[in-house]
């Protein structure tokens, strides 16, 4: 195993733990020490479950000593956005209000599935309040800080997930993505993130935001680690009515196939408008490496983004209506004001958005008859400064908070699987979306792996 445990891959850690080259306890202790040392600067973790993690690591060692197989993620420390239920803790979802909730009785099922594969939960991660955020800032817990520049945003809402993985605190983290909350922090922090197909991974026992659009998924520093984590979490779950009854379709064994034979296009039109030069530079590098010369127009992408915006605002408002009535003063004011506005949107307009969603889905799926994957920027720019309120997109000054997701929203709107791949530009990295047809996470992951092997995609190591 590489000498620097902090930036060892999950695959490397698991191999070393299984072989006895190191122990799960040594790995976990190292992660806890690193969290202790760096979290005051990164503000990625809101809770560390050190005792639980050590107990789990000792159990893995006991299993190994009796010859029991340890699983593909043996001893791999991981952490989850604080909207996942962790047994014994209230699920705060980045809010002040939920701190009064009773402790969760059980772990969210994806935590249980990762632990069944040998991984070890070490804590809960910072996030934008109730996931209505693209910045990673939080008025109650303070902002998640970007490991590449502590004065800059991680992106959000899964900000702590981005910071913890990019900063070498854990090799694997989980987050949620409703409109871009996995892909935006992956882009700004320079790591790999997978937003799977809508309905692929169970959302049971996670605090929701927008039932029509919510997804859960992993972050990692390599495509292989992303695939290993994702594979361990697949499978149906009757507790989430949206979770599809599909068999597990392993992706990690497929990675070696690379991108040979895949038809890859670049999204034009809407997905170039407003992009900063660095976003186009990253997209160009990825497209060139993959030999993707065709440009396709994703039809009505601006309207798709608008419809996703309307559905998010109104379903979010519906979710929080009682809290807005009785605890409005305890919200982040920026979240509260958006939710109150969302509650006032007439229902007739929301139904229009859901009807448009079906139309758009059918048109976009037609593109996947000609192409296996489509490339698009993940964010319009690299990480803005923490507290920055506006930026200029396509010559128009726009607020940062809702607009970091302009390129991610039209994709999650119809639940397509996406891997955000990091392109290590200097001084700051930026991501590119590799978008595949529904249920073809394997294709997006194969392309991500190929880009990594060609040296085009990589999670740059921050100086901390």
């Amino acid at each position, binding site marked *: 195993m590489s000498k620097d445990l902090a930036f060892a891959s999950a695959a490397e850690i698991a191999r070393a733990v299984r072989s006895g080259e190191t122990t799960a306890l040594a790995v976990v202790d190292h992660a806890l020490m690193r969290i202790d040392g760096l979290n005051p600067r990164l503000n990625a973790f809101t809770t560390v479950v050190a005792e639980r993690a050590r107990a789990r690591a000792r159990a893995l060692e006991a299993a190994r000593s009796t010859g029991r197989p340890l699983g593909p993620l043996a001893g791999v420390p991981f952490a989850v956005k604080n909207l996942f239920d962790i047994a014994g803790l209230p699920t705060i979802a980045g809010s002040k209000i939920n701190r009064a909730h009773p402790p969760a009785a059980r772990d969210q099922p994806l935590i249980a599935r990762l632990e069944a594969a040998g991984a070890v939960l070490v804590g809960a991660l910072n996030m934008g309040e109730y996931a209505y955020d693209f910045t990673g800032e939080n008025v109650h817990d303070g902002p998640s800080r970007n490991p590449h520049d502590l004065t800059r945003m991680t992106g959000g809402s899964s900000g702590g997930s981005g910071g913890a993985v990019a900063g070498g605190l854990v090799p694997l983290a989980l987050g949620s993505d409703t409109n871009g909350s996995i892909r935006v922090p992956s882009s700004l922090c320079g790591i790999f993130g997978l937003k799977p197909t809508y309905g692929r991974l169970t959302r049971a026992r996670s605090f929701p935001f927008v039932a029509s659009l919510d997804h859960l998924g992993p972050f990692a520093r390599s495509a292989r680690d992303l695939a290993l984590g994702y594979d361990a979490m697949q499978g149906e779950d009757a507790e989430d009515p949206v979770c599809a009854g599909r068999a597990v379709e392993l992706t990690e064994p497929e990675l070696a196939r690379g991108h040979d034979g895949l038809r890859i296009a670049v999204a034009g039109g809407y997905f170039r408008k407003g992009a900063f030069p660095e976003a186009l530079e990253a997209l160009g590098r990825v497209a060139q490496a993959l030999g993707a010369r065709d440009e396709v127009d994703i039809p009505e992408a601006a309207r798709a983004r608008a419809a996703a915006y309307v559905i998010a*605002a109104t379903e979010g408002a519906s979710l929080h209506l009682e809290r807005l009535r009785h605890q409005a003063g305890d919200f982040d004011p920026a979240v509260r*004001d958006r939710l109150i506005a969302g509650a*006032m949107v007439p229902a007739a307009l929301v*139904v229009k958005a859901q009807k448009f969603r*079906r139309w758009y889905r059918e048109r976009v799926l037609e593109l996947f008859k000609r192409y296996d994957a489509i490339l698009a920027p993940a964010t319009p720019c690299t990480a803005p400064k923490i507290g920055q309120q506006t930026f200029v997109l396509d010559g128009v000054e726009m607020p940062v908070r809702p607009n970091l997701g302009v390129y991610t929203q039209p994709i999650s709107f119809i639940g397509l699987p996406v891997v955000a791949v990091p392109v290590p530009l200097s001084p700051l990295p930026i991501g590119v979306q590799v978008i595949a047809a529904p249920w073809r996470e394997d294709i997006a992951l194969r392309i991500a792996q190929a880009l990594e092997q060609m040296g085009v995609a990589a999670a740059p190591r921050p100086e901390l």
Partner: protein
Amino acid sequence: MAEPADPLDDFITAAAAALDLPLQPEWRQAVKSNLVVTLNHAALVAEFALGDEAEPAPVFRA
């Protein structure tokens, strides 16, 4: 001369009352700004012509 009244202000007042939502005077401007943005997005969607037979994306199965 006084500014002409914006009907959206009346709508916000009525909607807050109908929904039993507290609306502190200092929140009103931000709520209005957000509502304008959301309604503009909704208008962009609503002006797109879809047939009467168009079904919403979520389909309930009994």
